[in-house]
């Protein structure tokens, strides 16, 4: 700060001539500067984002096995084959189950942690750091701990050790999808990794709720606890909740890392949409056409879900204001 202000003061003389300056040369020319600032980004965006998107839309209409410059136009056949591919439709079911579990659980846990931390007076920063720390850990590392230490199907796994104290038999969490114990592993690992991040969002929102609201409620006789939570805190957190749920949904949609490492792409169950795309486009068949068609379908779906959710939460807001 101090250096910048002194620098400003140090050059007062040229300021006198400033009215003429912006017109002098390119330095003050807005159009030139706009492209100077945004040019590198836009060129990169065009090459590495727009080109792939349009290329893949183009590829999705061609028979593109082992080639990215196909010549055989096949119309919507790739779309048909993806939508009738039981692996692909099955992966959409996997995503739906996963989202139905992880979105509400993360929402509730991160909100719960935020409410706890918000009420702390001592060691607040410490506890916030503890809950936030898993954000630094990669999905791969966490998957490794979950798979090889906590939910190992044999006796030395932590979970089975603890259950063993209560006389429970060893559970094979990951080798058998019946009953689907693998969801316990998959959901808890993501819960641990991401709850702290969303807790920070909720904490920031909690700090922005005006204290007068609670004071007014106390005067009106509302009991602190459930009543103030239900009628003040929760409605005040509505915007944050909407954003958090949307972020969680989009993240669940793109789930890959922990499924890949915990369940592996060789399994016939628990495959997410991205894993199916990975196998289709980069597996033995290298079917870029079908893989691209799958990517287009997924993109359309996620956009639809996003818009629907915005609409749904929007309606909710309308009801509240009545």
């Amino acid at each position, binding site marked *: 700060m101090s250096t910048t202000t002194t620098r400003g003061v140090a050059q007062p003389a040229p300021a006198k001539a400033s009215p003429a300056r912006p017109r002098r040369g390119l330095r*003050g020319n807005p159009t030139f500067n706009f492209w100077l600032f945004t040019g590198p980004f836009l060129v990169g965006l065009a090459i590495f984002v727009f080109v792939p998107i349009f290329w893949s839309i183009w590829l999705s209409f061609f028979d593109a096995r082992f080639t990215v410059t196909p010549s055989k136009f096949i119309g919507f056949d790739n779309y048909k084959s993806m939508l009738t591919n039981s692996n692909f439709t099955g992966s959409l079911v996997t995503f739906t189950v996963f989202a139905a579990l992880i979105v509400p659980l993360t929402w509730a846990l991160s909100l719960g942690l935020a409410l706890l931390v918000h009420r702390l007076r001592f060691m607040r920063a410490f506890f916030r750091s503890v809950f936030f720390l898993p*954000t630094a850990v990669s999905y791969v590392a966490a998957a490794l701990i979950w798979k090889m230490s906590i939910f190992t199907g044999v006796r030395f796994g932590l979970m089975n050790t603890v259950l063993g104290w209560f006389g429970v038999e060893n559970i094979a969490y990951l080798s058998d999808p019946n009953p689907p114990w693998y969801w316990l592993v998959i959901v808890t690992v993501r819960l641990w990794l991401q709850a702290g991040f969303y807790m920070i969002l909720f904490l920031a929102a909690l700090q922005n709720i005006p204290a007068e609201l609670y004071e007014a409620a106390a005067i009106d006789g509302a009991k602190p606890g459930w009543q103030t939570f239900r009628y003040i805190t929760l409605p005040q957190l509505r915007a944050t909740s909407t954003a958090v749920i949307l972020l969680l949904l989009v993240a669940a949609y793109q789930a890959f890392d922990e499924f890949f490492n915990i369940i592996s792409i060789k399994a016939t169950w628990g495959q997410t949409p991205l894993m199916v795309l990975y196998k289709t486009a980069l597996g033995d068949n290298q079917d870029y056409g079908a893989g691209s068609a799958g990517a287009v379908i997924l993109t359309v779906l996620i956009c639809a879900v996003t818009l629907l959710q915005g609409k749904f939460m929007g309606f909710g807001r309308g009801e509240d204001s009545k």
Partner: protein
Amino acid sequence: MTTTAPQVGKEPGKKRGDVLGNAGLYIAVSVAALLFLLPFYLILRNSLSTDPEITGENWKLLPSFQWGNISELFDDPTVDFARSMWNSMVIAVSMTVGTLLICSLAGYGLARIPYKHANKVFYAVLATLMVPTAVTFVPSFVLVSSLGWIDTYRGLIIPGLFSGFTCFLFRQYFLGFPKELEEAARVDGLGYWGAYWRIVVPNSLNFFAAMATITFISGWNAFLWPLVIGQDPSSWTVQVALSSFMTNQTVNFHLIFMATAISILPLVFVFLFLQRWLVQGIAQTGIKG
């Protein structure tokens, strides 16, 4: 960072119920904290144990502190772990520097430089946010492979530099940057470029630190893209190497966990030192994003 809530605990009117409530609160938060720290404990314990200790029937709380596991991991001829750590460091650092440079300039241009088509450009950037980056890995792979960038740093780094989301966050931030500071700079005869580097950036270091932390963490932890692009073991990042350990039966438990511990270590340091800015940054931008 301090609470706005009054220090009611010190007030004379508050009685036993409050003390009990506080005790309950601290017990609940401590139990939750222990559960959150448990995986870190497991990594440390296992990484400093011998294999029989890890797989033994009797649960041992403390390891026998096998510090030799570290050198054993780096001397292991079957996996070049040092190389994968180096790759991850090169990639995460270059991605952080590159993304910050490119996206902050673009964000500033979109937020502050008057240009009649600026809105159209901004909508084009916004449109890319609708397409989840992970879904585009198939077409991106197609592009990168036809450029011949498989197994190269270029292929691992460059496609990730042009993040519409980061550009968007910078734009939102610069919209709230005090205009008076820039106007003073303009009066002093600085052009847009000079004002940006001499006034705007030095006064935005908090926000840059937050974005740097986020970018570094996501660069270090990225898995899908390095998995797709780094096909030869010499171009593996540490995440891809860890993943291969899980399926590779020849690697031992204690080495796997030591590798995990070492892979997490740089991030925990980055995280602990930069957490303040990170929290601020998320609080500022996360909700809008």
